[in-house]
């Protein structure tokens, strides 16, 4: 039996969170293994591929090679069909996750991380002496610190003391595809709401800049049924883009609960979708994943330089996350809980109020202010949820 390969840090999962964790751990001086189950990272794409410039640029310089389209207009469509345009909400990108994920992995290996493609971690176990052993589909690996970035399944954390399975009210089951149609406006990202469109979620149309768009929707887990998301997508596409060619239909799950506590146990840290670090209202996880990955990787490198890769030092990752974006994510969960209580009629009422405002003057803050102004009791409910 060959000797296991020893690293300071083992990162499981080479999505955005794992790649950034590996990159920052490596550039901080740690020896790093980055393991990815798939032979080719970032394919098939399980993502709406919509991300705001503001969030993305907190951690990375957006590369033009990733960016399919830049969109500065956002549109909400209420259940009854009232359209609200927001023109002043900053730049949003529609990205190619296959190119972006591959680039992020390359940046991690350029920083010194050793990348293992097509290697699935089957088990992570504490071996004693502060060492963790990874049994994989390939080589046996050992590390002093393990960063779990294994996505929405968050499977590996379960045998290390975590209960990561999601309640049905904390997951959105999504179906999505690519649609080509001249009816798609290439300069606006559209969000459709309503119980007959996407119960407990929304449908999105993100234009790719070439006459096609990413079209998808998510249903709250409690409102799902077998195959319901796929059927809802087919109905939506048929209504919006009748007769248009549809390709690349896939599905995926988005965590919409509270971020995982704790984030650190002994020498193990959890990041990204696996840590439920996703904006609960929008389902956006790219920016949070990148931020958390960088935090965890940097923390692991600092702790490694100090010679102690254990909870006392690694907990700095959780503290820093909590202080910065953990709060933001808590707020998103409160907002989502409130939004779920809106009836279709109530949403239509908000939309009619908003549609009267000038689209360039509408910011997200103003949208919520108007929503709460219509029903001040909502504000009380939201404040209670924030705590």
């Amino acid at each position: 039996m060959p000797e296991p390969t020893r690293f300071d840090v083992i990162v499981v999962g080479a999505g955005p969170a794992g790649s950034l964790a590996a990159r920052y751990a490596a550039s901080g001086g740690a020896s790093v293994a980055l393991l990815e189950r798939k032979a080719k990272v970032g394919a098939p794409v399980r993502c709406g591929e919509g991300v705001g410039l503001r969030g993305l640029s907190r951690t990375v310089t957006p590369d033009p090679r990733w960016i399919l389209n830049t969109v500065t207009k956002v549109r909400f469509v209420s259940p009854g069909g009232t359209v609200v345009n927001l023109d002043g909400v900053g730049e949003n990108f529609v990205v190619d996750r296959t190119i972006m994920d591959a680039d992020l992995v390359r940046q991690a290996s350029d920083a010194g991380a050793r990348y293992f493609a097509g290697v699935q971690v089957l088990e992570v176990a504490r071996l004693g002496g502060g060492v963790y052993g990874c049994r994989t589909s390939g080589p046996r690996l050992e590390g002093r610190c393990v960063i779990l970035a294994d996505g929405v399944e968050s499977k590996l954390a379960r045998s290390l003391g975590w209960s990561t399975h999601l309640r049905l009210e904390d997951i959105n089951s999504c179906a999505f595809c690519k649609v080509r149609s001249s009816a798609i406006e290439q300069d606006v990202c559209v969000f459709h709401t309503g119980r007959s469109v996407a119960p407990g979620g929304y449908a999105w149309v993100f234009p790719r800049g070439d006459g096609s768009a990413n079209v998808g929707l998510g249903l709250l887990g409690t409102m799902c049924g077998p195959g319901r998301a796929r059927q809802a997508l087919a109905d939506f596409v048929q209504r919006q883009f009748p007769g248009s060619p549809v390709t690349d239909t896939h599905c995926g799950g988005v965590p919409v609960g509270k971020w995982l506590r704790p984030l650190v146990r002994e020498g193990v840290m959890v990041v990204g979708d696996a840590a439920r670090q996703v904006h609960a209202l929008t389902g956006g996880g790219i920016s949070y994943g990148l931020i958390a990955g960088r935090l965890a990787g940097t923390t692991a490198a600092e702790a490694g330089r100090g010679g102690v890769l254990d909870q006392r030092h690694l907990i700095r990752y959780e503290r820093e996350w909590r202080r910065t974006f953990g709060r933001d994510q808590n707020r998103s969960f409160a907002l989502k809980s409130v939004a779920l209580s809106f009836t279709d009629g109530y949403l239509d009422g908000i939309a009619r109020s908003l549609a009267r405002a000038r689209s360039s003057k509408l910011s997200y803050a103003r949208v919520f202010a108007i929503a709460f102004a219509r029903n001040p009791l909502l504000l009380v409910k939201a404040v209670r949820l924030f705590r």
Partner: protein
Amino acid sequence: MTVSVDTTVCDLCGCCVAVCPADSLTLFETELVVDDDRCTGCGRCVKVCAFGALACTTRKEADRA
């Protein structure tokens, strides 16, 4: 209890793994595997599957199939 997987429908997305309270599902790059001994038949995975690839079944039925 166990869960049967229609491999012609399953998109290997992992939603089911995410909601399983018994940790009975494992996703590999090319297949979803069910651990009969852990599955309690709660049906959450069946409900949440966007493509409807899963169905609750008893072990005897699964063997027959």
